[in-house]
């Protein structure tokens, strides 16, 4: 297919998805109401946000080969800085966006500069340490800014009217869609650019990149900052949809779930991560409705309760995939950093 046709197809697909708020078809069992009902649009918007977030993670993990355990920190930055800017600092929406964007570049720049001094497992651990520190900071509610474990609600009159109220869910839906498209575009452009190719080279063999005369540290930092920035953007949109900030987004298990999302979908293919993110969020929601359905309620407890725990199902799903699709996994494995193997104490 020639590039023009491909782009045309892409635009048509996006237009189709954007038209959802006018499609009043009920789609059981996918949604409990019509496609254009606020509940369904809300769910889809969240799926878009998670797709974008998973993609941002694929950039550092799948392409640059950096295993970060602290990605949740940057998503949380978007959520919390946005919330604080809008409530405690009483900024208008444009200013809040600007402040969030600035901080979501500076923070990963500083943190990344420290973390990237080490590699592999130590890198993973340091990123985890920073994320834990962020999580603790949020829970301690310094100066009453973050709301501690009760979270921070945006409250009335903080957001412009076109973003609040059930009738305006479609606006949030479009904003989330726009976010996803933008993040995909940026992601696709960045991994195909020359720094993007350097990332992939670093993932394969960092020593070789040094030998060519490039400084891998700077490239890794670039990937880190871009990926974190995109995650923060997703976080901000998440804040708009949810209307409040909650400390759940700062936990280590949140990053790990992200990791599993990306791996399930396919590491190193941007669209795979997006799909993984969307499917996970969708299942997370729908499994609850499933557990309320009469068919499941009558199941004995030992079947009913696990079916309502998305994490449990995620775990089982992942185990099954690894066991029964070993060929597929190997393909992805070969593209990942073989330096891990090389550094295992041999030679």
């Amino acid at each position, binding site marked *: 297919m020639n590039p023009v046709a491909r782009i045309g197809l892409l635009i048509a697909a996006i237009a189709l998805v954007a038209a959802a708020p006018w499609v009043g078809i*009920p789609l*059981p*069992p*996918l949604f*409990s*109401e019509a496609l254009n*009902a*606020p*509940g369904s649009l*809300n769910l889809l918007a969240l799926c878009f946000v998670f797709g974008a977030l998973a993609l941002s993670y694929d950039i550092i993990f799948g392409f640059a080969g950096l295993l970060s355990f602290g990605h949740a920190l940057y998503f949380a930055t978007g959520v919390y800085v946005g919330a604080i800017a809008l409530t405690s600092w009483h900024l208008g929406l444009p200013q809040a966006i600007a402040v969030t964007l600035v901080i979501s570049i500076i923070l990963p720049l500083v943190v990344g500069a420290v973390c990237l001094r080490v590699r592999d497992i130590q890198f993973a651990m340091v990123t985890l340490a920073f994320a834990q520190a962020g999580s*603790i900071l949020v*829970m*301690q*509610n310094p100066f009453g800014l973050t*709301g*501690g*474990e*009760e*979270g921070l*609600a945006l409250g009335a009159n903080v957001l412009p009217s076109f973003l609040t109220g*059930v009738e305006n869910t479609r606006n949030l839906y479009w904003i989330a869609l726009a976010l996803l498209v933008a993040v995909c575009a940026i992601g696709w452009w960045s991994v195909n650019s020359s720094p993007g190719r350097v990332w992939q080279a670093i993932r394969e063999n960092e020593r070789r990149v040094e030998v060519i005369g490039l400084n891998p540290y700077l490239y890794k930092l670039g990937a880190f900052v871009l990926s974190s920035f995109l995650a923060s953007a997703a976080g901000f949109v998440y804040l708009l949809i*949810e*209307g*409040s900030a*909650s400390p*759940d987004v700062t936990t280590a298990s949140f990053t790990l779930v992200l990791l599993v999302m990306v791996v*399930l*979908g*396919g590491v190193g*293919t941007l669209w*795979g991560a997006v*799909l*993984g993110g969307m*499917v996970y969020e*969708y*299942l997370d929601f*729908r*499994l*609850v*409705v*499933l*557990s*309320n*359905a*009469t*068919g*499941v*309620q009558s199941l004995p407890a030992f079947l009913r*309760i696990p*079916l*309502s*725990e998305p994490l449990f*199902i995620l775990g089982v*799903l992942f185990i099954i*995939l690894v066991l029964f*699709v070993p*060929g*597929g996994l190997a*393909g*992805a494995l070969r593209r990942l950093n073989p330096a891990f193997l090389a550094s295992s104490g041999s030679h």
Partner: protein
Amino acid sequence: MRLSRIVSALCAGILLCAPLSAAPATAADAAPIHIAVITDMSGVYASISGQGAVEATKMAVEDFGGKVLGREIIVDTVDHQNSGPTAEAKAREEFDNGAELAVDLTNSATALAVASVAKDKHKIAIVSGGGTSALTGASCNKYTYHYAYDTYALAHSEGVAVAKTGLKTWYGIVPDYAFGKSMLADFTDAIQPYGATFVHADTMPLGTTDFSSYMLAAKNAHPQVLALLNAGADTVNSMKAAKEFGLDKQMKIVVGLFFLPQVDTDPALWAGAKVADSWYWDQTPEARKWADRYAARMNGVRPGSIQAADYSSTMQWLKAVKAVGSVDADKVVAYLDGRKFSDFYAQNAEWRARDHSVVHDMYVYDILPQSQLKEKDAWYKLVDTIPAAQAFRPVAQSTCTKTW
């Protein structure tokens, strides 16, 4: 290869959703009314609310006749998994699909989240499980009521009952998050009129699992009272550490937040502790009768106060709906505000109009050791009754900006 993996994941996902029944439209008046019990079904609070809360609510619906205004009543079980965003999303979904009332809401973060959804959707939420006083303070709203207890009530029942006996030096074990800090503030206020103070109340950082060093420090300080102002696993860990260092023999141990079903998990651990609660099943013949009916449905396990509160609040709401002839939240609120009542759960109770705190008498109990247990689940011994007017925050001190 990867495509096949994704396809299989998708298929698994869709297959899992297949057994769903399509949700009916709710335009017609003959459609059923749903009551959403939003609770923790499988986490740390499952025994104090969980399935018991659902059963209690169902009992209320059945006792009422199963129908109101000619419409069937369906009780939905909603597991919030102790997550604010999850609770919020599910509450939205429930209210959009025929729910007129949300009850239970154990865990303060979820209670606050659902309270704001209730306000958005103009439906009623009655919180029995969560304890944050913000629900009737800074986060108060027209459509939310706080039913069973809050941190102020706990402090002003337990704290007062113990300080009254002349124990003046207190040592606080306080976790470093909103609940802990608000418990400490409330307890400090409550004991102060009796000349008692906290000689020490350092907040413990989040993630502390080993309380040994704090217990040793407490032992060293020789206070008369050790106040455990934490919740969940922290309470168990700190109690275990306290007993390990022999603190239960040296001083009185006051457990800030505690519910009857927790004793069963480790009776030896809790024997001798002092707790406050809003209700106990063996306190009156009416309470016992209700508890026996509950136990018949719950494998012989007797209810705690939150489950009783769920029954009571649901029943009150149903009666209000019948009285005003509509589920319209504004009308129900107008009916409930200012209403006084007494039932097997709450004595001298009132649905306070000013801040939507439902006040009632509170009680202080000692937890009996196994050797004094007369029958199953009979762990509490009443030592003090605190009238509603003293237990709950006086209306004059309310920080609720009433906007309705």
